[in-house]
């Protein structure tokens, strides 16, 4: 009797909770670290829509270049007396916007191009790959300058420049692995039971290069944040009064002597976000690999 009671003590809920706990513990630490950083980043962006310590571009002329810790300005103010926390929150918004749009578009188009080239006729493959290589060789910043000359500086220019920069990267990175998978036995098996190339690419190649695409996507996200900041820093990207980490960083340049600590705030924001995306990508790749999370799937 006592035996059965110990067995019934494990209700189905208990079992599923302990299984869930086990599954969570099996996930890689990088997933948690990256996930935390990126959640924080997204959270800050969301909050910025309903609340910032001060309204956007509120100049507190009495409190210009206030050091961190000044009452009312936890991280101080910049040269024009804008609250640093407010600036960082609004800058995060712009970084997220530009990097999401550019990465999604570039990943989609680039992967599509890469997969099409990998699946194309052998005679076409080499010239098409060279064409992608040519795109890869174009200096991205210069491209951005040219686009800016045509369209004028701004977020659209920055986004288009990043997309133009990243599409060849995404395409080039997918061609090789996709070709390798197309040469594998399970692809021949698929042809042998009547599958056609588009199906094979969609259902065999794509899932099997997904770990690569996840890492690529996170690296591209991180790069987009950096490029957006760089373009804003150079004055080609987003224009005042929109806040941006890159422009913030640019403005701290002239304050290297008066307020050297100021440059660390946008700098650290950029580094942490970039790091977060890289960690997240690495963690996701590990977590989604069926060979790694054996216990989680069984």
């Amino acid at each position, binding site marked *: 009797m006592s035996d059965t009671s110990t067995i019934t003590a494990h209700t189905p809920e208990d079992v599923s909770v302990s299984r869930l706990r086990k599954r969570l513990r099996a996930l890689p630490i990088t997933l948690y670290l990256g996930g935390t950083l990126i959640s924080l980043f997204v959270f800050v962006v969301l909050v910025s829509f309903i609340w910032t310590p001060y309204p956007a571009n509120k100049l507190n002329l009495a409190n210009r270049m206030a050091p961190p810790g000044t009452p009312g300005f936890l991280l101080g103010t910049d040269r024009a007396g804008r609250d640093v926390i407010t600036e960082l929150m609004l800058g995060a918004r712009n970084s997220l916007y530009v990097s999401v749009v550019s990465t999604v578009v570039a990943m989609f188009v680039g992967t599509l191009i890469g997969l099409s080239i990998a699946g194309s006729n052998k005679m076409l493959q080499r010239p098409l790959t060279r064409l992608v290589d040519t795109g890869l060789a174009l200096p991205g910043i210069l491209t951005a300058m040219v686009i800016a000359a045509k369209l004028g500086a701004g977020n659209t220019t920055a986004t288009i420049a990043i997309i133009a920069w990243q599409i060849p990267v995404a395409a080039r990175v997918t061609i090789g692995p996709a070709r390798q998978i197309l040469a594998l036995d399970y692809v021949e098996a698929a*042809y042998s*039971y009547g599958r056609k190339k588009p199906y094979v690419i969609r259902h065999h190649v794509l899932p099997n290069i997904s770990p690569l695409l996840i890492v690529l996507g996170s690296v591209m996200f991180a790069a987009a944040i950096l490029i957006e900041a760089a373009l804003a820093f150079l004055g080609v990207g987003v224009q005042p009064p929109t806040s941006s980490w890159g422009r913030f960083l640019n403005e701290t340049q002239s304050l290297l002597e008066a307020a050297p600590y100021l440059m660390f705030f946008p700098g650290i924001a950029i580094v942490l976000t970039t790091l977060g995306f890289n960690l997240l990508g690495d963690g996701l790749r590990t977590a989604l690999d069926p060979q790694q999370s054996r216990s989680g799937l069984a």
Partner: protein
Amino acid sequence: MTSLVEVTNMYFHYPRARIIAGEAAWTLEDISLSIQPKSTVGIVGESGSGKSTLVRVMCGLLRHQQGNVKFNGKDLSEFEGDGANDLRRENQIVFQNPRRSLDPRMTIRRSLSEPIRALHNRQPGDDEIIATIERVGLGREVLSRFPHQLSGGQLQRVGIARSLSVQPTILYADEPVSALDVSVQAQVLNLLMDLRDQLGLTLVMVSHDLGVVSRMCEEIVVMRHGRIAEAGRTDSVLARPDSNYTASLLKAARAASLERA
């Protein structure tokens, strides 16, 4: 009695291979052979002699450049377009390396249902899948697993189950056990023979084990440098080999089996 597969004066080369190497570079040259319904044919020959290529041309996965290949009296070119699926349904292959011939990201259930989904345009029912997997001596518990969670022998059983799921007439087995542990090779070969008898299959088996071929196949095709060196009834070919090449293969096989003993 009409042959199931009839190959006459067939030549094949891989794309570009011939352009580079000139006229003489056929991968398969002047191949003529016929396969009778419900017979078991062994294809032997040294590595690179064109066994795998021949199998792929016969079942229509590769397109030959000269000569004729007929299936059920119809030229393979007649199976283009809408008929392609008929050809695929009737001709199935078991691949050499089961670990590489199953998509690592598909569950066994998904892999097993693929041929029916592709060739019959429908999702196979649970009973059907379970019958398919049980026929090769595996339990339904493997269905939810991924390939890396099965042994090589189990995976080759899955490979066999997959190819039989669409009820082919002819099964091509391209060295079906050479990637497997010696201890399970006999089991998988026995399974193949049992299924052949049960289902009345025509079986074409590529092997470099003459012992296996002599036990399983009533007919044998000996390949060398892309040509047929010799073909005929297995017992007579092996008892009185016409070509020196077959004789040397036999000698090598005897030496190998002595070594093992």
